[in-house]
């Protein structure tokens, strides 16, 4: 299986790559080149940092329409991680209003409660919905590592799994070939390794 990690210059790609290698998948490329992305069996969209800056980079690299085409028209499986997951939604209000890739119906905003310690950092439990592919074979309320200041909400059914931190927000979504996780599976021990394996095998 050819796996391409979309490299638009934001975040730590080393841990994602080494987690996937650990699972026995060695055909991994880091790239932002359309033809390389097109040749992939599966895509991973990672990312850490600022939403506005990330979209700027993606637009500078002319990647937005390319990703939309591969994911929406060609139905190539994709997994967004952390900021990468947020970018897959409609928009974010981090550093002003910015449009995202618009692959799924979700908007990213600050946590509503003002009493919370922000960023939301650490392991937190999620409640996978019935029939989830991502959490197949994983404990019913598994712990995953979160580190973020903004969170996604959605009014649509995007196969969301909730996490609670002062309020419920989207910890992950999975709809057809599109999946995203707010947390870092590559930093979530056995629970995370199994989830990555599920994406690679079940999507």
């Amino acid at each position, binding site marked *: 299986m050819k796996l391409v990690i979309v490299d638009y210059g934001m*975040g*730590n790609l*080393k*841990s994602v790559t*080494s*987690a996937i290698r*650990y699972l026995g998948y060695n055909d991994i490329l880091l790239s932002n080149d359309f033809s390389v992305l097109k040749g992939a069996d599966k895509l991973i969209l990672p990312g*850490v*940092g*600022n939403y506005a*800056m990330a979209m700027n980079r993606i637009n500078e690299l002319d990647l937005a329409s390319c990703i939309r085409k591969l994911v929406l028209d060609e139905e190539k499986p994709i997994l967004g991680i952390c900021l990468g997951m947020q970018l897959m939604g409609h928009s974010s209000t981090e550093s002003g209003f910015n449009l995202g890739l618009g692959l799924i119906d979700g908007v990213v905003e600050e946590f509503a409660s003002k009493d919370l*310690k*922000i*960023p*939301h*950092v*650490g*392991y*937190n*439990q999620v409640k996978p919905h019935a029939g989830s592919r991502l959490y197949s074979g*994983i*404990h019913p309320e*598994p*712990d995953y*590592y979160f*580190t*973020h*200041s903004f969170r996604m909400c959605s009014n649509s059914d995007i196969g969301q799994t909730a996490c*609670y*931190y002062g309020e419920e927000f989207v910890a992950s979504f999975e709809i057809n070939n599109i999946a995203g996780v707010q947390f*870092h599976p*590559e*930093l*979530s*021990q*056995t*629970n*995370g*390794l199994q989830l990555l394996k599920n994406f690679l095998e079940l999507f």
Partner: protein
Amino acid sequence: MLRKRLIFGLIYNNGGFMQSRNFRLQRVGDINWLEKNYKFQKISFSLDELLVIDATKGTKDIEKFSSLVSRLVEDVFIPVAAGGGIRKIEDAELLFNSGADKVVLNSPLYNDPELATEIINRFGSQSLVASVDYKVIDGIPVVHINDGTTAIPISLEDYLQHLEQLEVGEIIFNSIDKDGTGFGYDIDNIEKYAKAVNMPFIIMGGAGNEHHLSSGLSIDEVSGVATANLFNFIGNGLPNARSFMLEHGANLARWE
């Protein structure tokens, strides 16, 4: 429910790993010693986070330190925070590229806060951990920078506010007096200052056994307990401590 964290710290100095006591360093062994006695890839399944600090006095070699971080994080699937000697954004970038998920700043938070802002703007608040070392002098906790050698003329309260305004992601609150003693955390000051900031608060300095870790974790505002005591947790010390804590109801993540 948001879990609390058990964090293991490694103090690095000029090629070796150290046991620190009141910030005086004693060499324990090199990375081969560490891999033999701690088997990180295995031990990491009992931890929630790894903290790696370059405490070399004087000039620190960030490139050498980064390559060590890179070797340590291989097949370790928990967050890694690394720091010591970061003086410019490129140093932070080098550590991120070597597999660090967060970087730790100490002295620059006081004498070059713009570096903190630059790191936050580029990598986000969550990527920056503020290390605060303090020593109690005449009953008052005083923040020290430059590897614990220099007192700063700002009260601890004001300094914590300064860090909150900088929007750092978390604080590691480290008692120089308790460091390496194994006598337990500085509970009184922790209880007083953990509630002073609205961000994750990690405590360090003094844990010598699983009871100390448990009692630190039981303080409401404490988000995580760290130990860098290489002697006290050798072999299966950390997995055993975690099992003990979970059996006693600690709010830690559970791995299948």
